[in-house]
């Protein structure tokens, strides 16, 4: 298959922290326009996978291909220019800056002002409760709202591939539901989505494809629907 069909392909990447391996031989393939999830428990290595893809953590081995091109070890800002966008773990908003500034920074790489304005309008339609608070410092927002801002900021770069690190963690069930819908919405607009989750129930419900990560290794991969049916997943991740 070509880079067009598989916008993001991860081939056998390994990474370690001070010599201690964190992920081992992880391979992922994201089909164009699909939603893929990586499920794993605390410390399984989910964030490390994301950070390796976006260049924040160096890989020891393996390759990352974005739209067919080898981007292994490229700095994050270069990847953003190539159409990747990330909602990092812990949101990482620019807390002492206003909502408007955060969203503007999301569009940092873009020079087409009218297109940016159009996207801002689109984002504010998706998050109507943010509209009146454009001049508020984002550290004044609630946790759920901050998660919305993080996603909104990531959308502002008009990405073609979006990575989200535990977008639902610590949020109230209604908000979790909204985030789920949002991911669906983003995907339908043509963006290929990868999100990592501890919450397997919601993850498998939203995703098309799923991987299960345990102690840094991929131990299972299939369509989300199929995986949700296996006994191990039911027992270990869905609490059934």
């Amino acid at each position, binding site marked *: 298959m070509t880079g067009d069909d598989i916008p993001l392909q991860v081939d056998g990447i390994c990474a370690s922290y001070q010599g201690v391996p964190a992920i081992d031989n992880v391979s992922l393939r994201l089909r164009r326009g699909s939603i893929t999830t990586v499920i794993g428990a605390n410390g399984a290595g989910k964030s490390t996978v994301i950070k390796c893809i976006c260049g924040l953590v160096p890989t020891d081995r393996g390759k990352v291909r974005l739209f067919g091109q080898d981007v292994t070890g490229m*700095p994050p800002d270069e990847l953003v220019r190539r159409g990747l966008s990330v909602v990092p773990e812990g949101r990482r908003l620019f807390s002492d*800056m206003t909502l408007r500034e955060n969203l503007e920074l999301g569009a940092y790489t873009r020079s087409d002002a009218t297109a940016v304005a159009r996207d801002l309008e689109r984002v504010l339609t998706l998050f109507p409760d943010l509209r009146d608070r454009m001049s508020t410092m984002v550290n004044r927002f609630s946790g759920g709202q901050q998660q919305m801002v993080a996603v909104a900021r990531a959308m502002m770069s008009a990405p073609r591939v979006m990575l989200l690190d535990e977008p639902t963690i610590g949020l109230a069930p209604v908000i979790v539901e909204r985030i789920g819908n949002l991911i669906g919405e983003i995907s339908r607009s043509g963006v290929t989505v990868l999100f990592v989750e501890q919450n397997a129930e919601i993850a498998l419900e939203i995703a098309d494809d799923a991987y299960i990560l345990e102690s840094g290794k991929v131990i299972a991969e299939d369509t989300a629907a199929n995986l949700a049916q296996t006994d191990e997943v039911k027992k270990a991740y869905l609490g059934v």
Partner: protein
Amino acid sequence: MMSATFVQLVIISLEIGSVYVLFSLGLTLIFGIMKVVNFAHGQFFAVSAILVTILVPFLAAHGLPVLPAYFLATATTVAVTVMIGWGVYQFGLVRFLRDMEGAFILTLGLAMLSDGLMLSIFGGAPRPEPVIVPGTVRIFAVAVLAQHVVVFGAAVCITGALYWSMTATRLGKALRAIASDHEAAMLQGIPYRRLSRDGFLIATALAAIAGALMAPISEVTPAVGNDYLMNGFMAVVVGGLGSVPGAILGAMFIAVIEAVGGYYVGPSAATMAIFVMVIVVLLIRPRGLLGRA
């Protein structure tokens, strides 16, 4: 009716404060972006002050009136200093981004090297200073050196310009984003390394401009940068490392203690008082007056 002494002390505080502000802005900018303290910051100040004392008489001897000579000298000096800063960044500091200890050793070493170089090139004797804006002006019946008024005005303009560009321009916002969270900034496509360099060069230019502005009123020797570094550094620490409004507040804080203490209890005690007050502030607010937790 305000007493003459009160007016006098207010004016002196503003004079001293504007000098420290000019010096601190670059220091706090570098810390905010790169999370390192540049102990060679004073060297850029000194190089610039020395070059101005060389260039102004040189240009004047070639027939230029003093003001154009000064502006041309300042422009040249800032350009030269920024080029030196580029070298320092490209061949040194770029390896020590966010590495407090590494950068400490590097910038301290550079400062020593530059101390020695400047001493052997320019000599240790104070250099004759050009008179740019001569005479005194009266403000509320208090005589003030005209050059001090110039420095104050320049400090206000430069601080205003910096503040405006940090809040209103794309570069400024990107630099603030880097200061806030450099990884998150990179994830928005902000080229961290390139902008760190730009931020460092802006800070270098600020030090050079400060040096050029102070050349007519401060002493001009290779050691002058170190003397300012001490108070500039304390201003930045008191105000909150990395914060531009903090640097302004910290500079004024130190200036007021120096002016009021110097007048009422004497200069030596005022210097002690600055140290004591800095420690007191840091005990109450370990990250400085406007520092983020």
